[in-house]
């Protein structure tokens, strides 16, 4: 069962409007940071992309668990779609973070920082996942291997983060964690842009899932 095309299109149009609104807010409404200046505005794409990436990989995890439970092809299709979208979002996170780091830290990359290393390892794990999906024989075997790699990979990421933190970190703490740390204008902009990016991720996963479902239906029809 694939998501209906007209519903997907509706969500895509709504998200395009939301992305426009978010861009407008980031450029014209949100104040520039007192210390970092205009560079800080990267935060409105960097952080939502990171959150959406983690949520996409959580979908890979859940899809994998469901697949191992009942071998439903839909769960595997969802996991694969989410892995692809998650990898793209992780790439956005890494690139945006590097662009921010150059003026603020004076370097594109800090090789021993916990958050940076764990994000890079996250990227490598799911790049490996997608390579494996390409190499393994499609069908039950690839789905089962995918579920295992998706689950073990997701467990590994917090541990990578923890082991490097135990080493040392310079990444700024999550600033929204303390209430009142962000002025309301920044918070609103952040909320809208997060919503826009999350919806974008959901729409992309939906389209990817639908494409896969249609392809499988076509293959089944050609077999008959």
């Amino acid at each position, binding site marked *: 069962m694939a998501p209906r095309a007209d519903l997907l299109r509706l969500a895509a149009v709504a998200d395009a409007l939301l992305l426009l609104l978010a861009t407008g807010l980031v450029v014209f409404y949100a104040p520039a940071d007192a210390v970092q200046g205009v560079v800080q505005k990267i935060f409105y794409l960097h952080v939502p992309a990171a959150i959406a990436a983690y949520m996409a990989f959580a979908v890979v995890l859940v899809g994998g668990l469901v697949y191992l439970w009942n071998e439903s092809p839909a769960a595997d299709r969802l996991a694969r779609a989410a892995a692809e979208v998650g990898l793209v979002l992780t790439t956005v996170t890494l690139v945006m973070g590097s662009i921010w780091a150059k003026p603020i830290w004076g370097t594109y990359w800090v090789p021993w920082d916990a958050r940076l290393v764990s994000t890079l390892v996250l990227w490598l794990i799911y790049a490996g996942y997608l390579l494996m999906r390409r190499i*393994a024989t499609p069908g039950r075997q690839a789905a089962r291997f995918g579920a295992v790699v998706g689950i073990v990979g997701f467990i590994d990421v917090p541990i990578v983060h923890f*082991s490097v933190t135990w080493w040392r970190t310079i990444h700024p703490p999550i600033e929204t964690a303390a209430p009142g740390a962000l002025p309301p204008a920044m918070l609103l902009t952040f909320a809208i842009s997060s919503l826009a990016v999350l919806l974008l991720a959901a729409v992309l996963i939906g389209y990817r899932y639908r494409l896969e479902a249609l392809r499988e239906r076509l293959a089944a029809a050609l077999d008959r």
Partner: protein
Amino acid sequence: MRAYLRVAGAVARKDLRTELRSREMLPALGQFVVLALLIANFGFDVGTGGSRIAPGVLWLTITFAGLLAFGRTFAAERDQASLEALLLTPASRAAIFAGKALAAAAVLAACEVVLVPALGVFFGTPVLSLPLAAALVMVTIGMAGLGCLFAAIAAQTRARDLLLPVLSLPLWVPFVVVGGRAVQVALGGGGELNGALALLLDFDILFVVVASLAAKFVLDD
């Protein structure tokens, strides 16, 4: 539990006996280790202090020797189609996996027995060091658990030599980070050793449990 241990022990003994009779892996891994150190010796500027780069050389050699050792454990079974025979037995998949991982860990440990003295000769690091041995044993167990899980996956696909490093290396990062610290301390750097060893033990338990649970799905056909 008794049956599990018996099967795991039997599979491990079988793999080690095959290795002792054919003598393929261990000589090759021993040569690989010495050659890796030789390359590092010329690649790095050893004149400025060999002991400073020794931990890094140790890690590069162990991770790549591990890929070779773990890749062989399932690839050999696959080539001889003996994996199917093994899986046709009523023994639990987790026990078969544990036995193979145990044998692979023993092979990598044997390789480290060559590596550590050779490192001492090339870079002047201590050879007989209890902290170093403890760190290496713990890292080897965890790496074998994860590495054999992915080796089992890779062996059942085409292009398996490509897949094993791509899957294993990112997931070994926790062992490289914490084990790296432990080895630096053991080889004369400053820092606390017990915390690192305790953390490695935690990782071992976690990943051995996860790999055994996952083995059932990877070896299922």
